[in-house]
Each structure stands twice: as structure tokens, then as C-alpha cells.
């Protein structure tokens, strides 16, 4: 799907491209620790993928638990948002943005706000 500019995209093509992969996270705006909301497990998978949750089993519940709160806080710090630990509107809008698939955190150590020192990063991961 390569186009020199937006006007060259066939109109019939556009309606099929508006649903993003993470649009379902929109309904999680306002969620906070202690709640149980359908869809939280998918968000945990998102944070797991990008290194914010280190649960290795990959089985996640819809509970807004301590692990998710910690993940949200770390995410908010990395993206210069208020580290509230809650899924406020600005955090959800940031999560919804298209992004690079490379993880932000490797082995529990941030590679974004790491003080510019690779010595803080302990293990090599090829990705």
C-alpha cells in the first residue's frame, strides 16, 4: 500500500483502514487500580510486549492489579506524562498512537529514561 500522497489513495480504500489495532483500549480510559474491566488483559499484553510487565506466563486477568499500576507509571514516566498509575485520557491517547515495535524496557530496565548510560542495562537482547 504505497502512495505518493494522500490524494492518490483510492476512496474505496480508506474506510477499511480506520480501525487501528489498539482501538479497543479507548474504552479503558478512566480505569484505575482495583477495578476489573473487560479488556484489561489485552492491555497487559500490550505492556508485556513493550517490556513494562515481565510476567513470563503470558496469562493475564482483567484485574487492574499492582503489576499493571507499576507498568502504567513506568510508561507515563517514559512518555513524559503524569505518573499517576491510572489510565487517564492523556495516557490512553498516547497508548493508541502507532509506534515502533521495539520494546521500551528490556529485562525490567528502561532503555528510555536510563540516564543515557548503557551500563545500567544488564542483559543483551537482540531485538
Amino acid at each position, binding site marked *: *500500500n*504505497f*502512495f*505518493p*500522497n*494522500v*490524494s492518490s*489513495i483510492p476512496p474505496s*480504500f*480508506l474506510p477499511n*483502514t*480506520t*480501525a*487501528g*489495532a*489498539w482501538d479497543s483500549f479507548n474504552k479503558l480510559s478512566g480505569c484505575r487500580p482495583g477495578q476489573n474491566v473487560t479488556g484489561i488483559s489485552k492491555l497487559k499484553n500490550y505492556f508485556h510486549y513493550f517490556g513494562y510487565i515481565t510476567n513470563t506466563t503470558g496469562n493475564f486477568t482483567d484485574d487492574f492489579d499492582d503489576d499493571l499500576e507499576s507498568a502504567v507509571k513506568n510508561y507515563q*514516566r*517514559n*512518555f*513524559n506524562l503524569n505518573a499517576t498509575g491510572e489510565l487517564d485520557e492523556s495516557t490512553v491517547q*498516547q497508548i493508541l*498512537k*502507532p*509506534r*515502533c*515495535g*521495539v520494546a*521500551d524496557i*528490556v*529485562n525490567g*530496565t*528502561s*532503555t*528510555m*529514561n*536510563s540516564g*543515557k548510560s*548503557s551500563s545500567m*542495562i*544488564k*542483559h*543483551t*537482547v*537482540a*531485538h
Partner: protein
Amino acid sequence: YSFFPGRPRWPARQSDLTYAFEPRNQLSDDVKRVFASAFSRWSEWTPLTFTETSNYFAADLKIGFYSGDHGDGEAFDGVLGTLAHAFAPPAGLLHLDIAETWITGNVIASGSPSAMDLESVAVHEIGHVLGLGHSSVEDAIMFPTIPSGVRKVELDRDDIEGIQVLYGTNPDNNSTTGPSFGGREISGVT
């Protein structure tokens, strides 16, 4: 800026890097020109040079568009979501999601909520194949997210400082006050 764990980089003896495109993609010259421009953003500030080669398997950097599970354990997820990923040196793999609507020319004033500027994403992923991790500096190329309809292709001071820690400066351009700092090209609509 940040680096991958262990701070991998291309060895000093290998400053002239070759790149090639996945032959099965049969990319147009327009698409290839976008990548040539993206590589030039990094060679402007480092001693690295980038030359396209037709020998995909021998190239240092291998660029390809793929969909879904494409064999590297990092499946793409369709429209938007993850746009691309790349691997630290010396892997040299740069993969983009073929499901996206990629704009090779003017993405500005986009009427499409999902049109992505190809060069913007390419410049970011090249940063990864050279050894940079993500940055929390929002203006930096290495910031992880980019909205649709936005063109962001010029390196920020943060990107330049990071890449020059790994490779040093371009002997022909060791200024940090050049035109790229005075008139950076970040524009578009969100």
C-alpha cells in the same frame, strides 16, 4: 538517547554499510528513494556511509515489508498498532508492516486517519539498526510513537548526540549548529 543492552554497534572497520531490499517485495524506485533519503539523515552526522546493493543476502542491512507472523517472533498486527521494528547490530534487519498505508511523498494535511509517512518511520528504524534504543525526548527521531499524517525526518540534537557516542562525527560535518537544528522538519496533522 539510549542504547541497546551491551551497547552493540557496527565495528569501526565496517563504516561503509550496504543495504538491500527484500526481493519478493519488488519495491518501486520511489520507495527506494525514500530509504536513500532516510539513510542520508544519519550519514550527515556520522562517518557512516550507506550504499544500496542488489545482493540481498550479502547486504549488511536487509529491509523488507512483511505481514503478520513473518518468522522473527515479532508478528505485525495489521493497520496501525506497531508499524515496524528493527534489530540491533550486527543483525541489520529492518522490517515494516505491509498492512500500513505508506505515503512516499507528501503526507502533510492528510485526510486519512491511517496514512503513515514512510521516511519518518524509516529514519527511526535505521536508528535501531545502528544501535540506538528509544528516547524519551518527544522531538527525537527515536521517540517510540508517531501519529499518522505526521512527517518527522530530521534528527534532533538528542539523536545526534547518541549516534555520535557510538560512531563519532562526520569528518565533513562536525557542527552541532547546522541547518538541521535551525529549521527542523516536523510537520503535519494528528
